[in-house]
């Protein structure tokens, strides 16, 4: 999977916000905000191909977390990104 073109992670007022810069209209009534660890993952995989497994590996590198938890979290996050249309499978 890969991040869809035109989506960019920005810092706004201390929050990590995904903005569709490729689109003409930026809709803040449907804004996507990422927490610290999700934003970190986003930056790691920007412009690259990734899988829930590779996300989990990154999580385990960065945080003190066991494999099962990392994979469950990564799978849930990847599914969420796909469901809101910012990542393509």
């Amino acid at each position: 999977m890969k991040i869809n073109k035109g989506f960019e992670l920005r810092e706004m007022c201390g929050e990590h916000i995904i903005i569709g810069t490729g689109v003409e209209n930026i809709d803040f009534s449907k804004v996507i905000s990422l927490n610290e660890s999700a934003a970190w993952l986003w930056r790691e995989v920007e412009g690259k191909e990734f899988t829930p497994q590779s996300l989990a590996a990154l999580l385990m590198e960065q945080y003190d977390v066991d494999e099962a938890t990392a994979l469950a979290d990564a799978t849930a996050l990847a599914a969420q990104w796909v469901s809101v249309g910012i990542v393509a499978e």
Partner: protein
Amino acid sequence: MRQAPHKTASVELPNDKFLKEVRTLIAAGHDVTLRVRGVSMRPFLEDRRDQIVLTQPGVVKVGDAVLAEIAPGKYVYHRIISIEGDKVTLRGDGNVYGTEQCRLADVAAATKELIRKGRSYSAQGKAWRYYSALWPSWSFARRVLLKLYRMLKLYK
């Protein structure tokens, strides 16, 4: 403790900083959709229910609803009631007495579209223009109509 990456709560950004960023995006040529906060543009726009699509201001005129910086970092989305030289006076449709002032350069965005109850109205379209022309500026009439609106909302 680490927070699971998919656990993201809904966030509310502080208005002053957020609207400054919005202003930058608009200046860069984007249109920006915002959810309405507050009741000062009642009865057309309702708090948290409706949205507005903002665009670069161009030439603004009396009657336009605009996003303006009325003091450093303080933004309102109100209607222009007069322009004298560089001095712009604004007033929310839902406000009976209060007005605000700014300079022309402080007008950060004009309205492109209004989304009321999920239905979209062009700022250049008939419906919004009729409403804009018909909504009274006379404080007494406003007070009565806004009171009626609040009563009707209570019974809904």
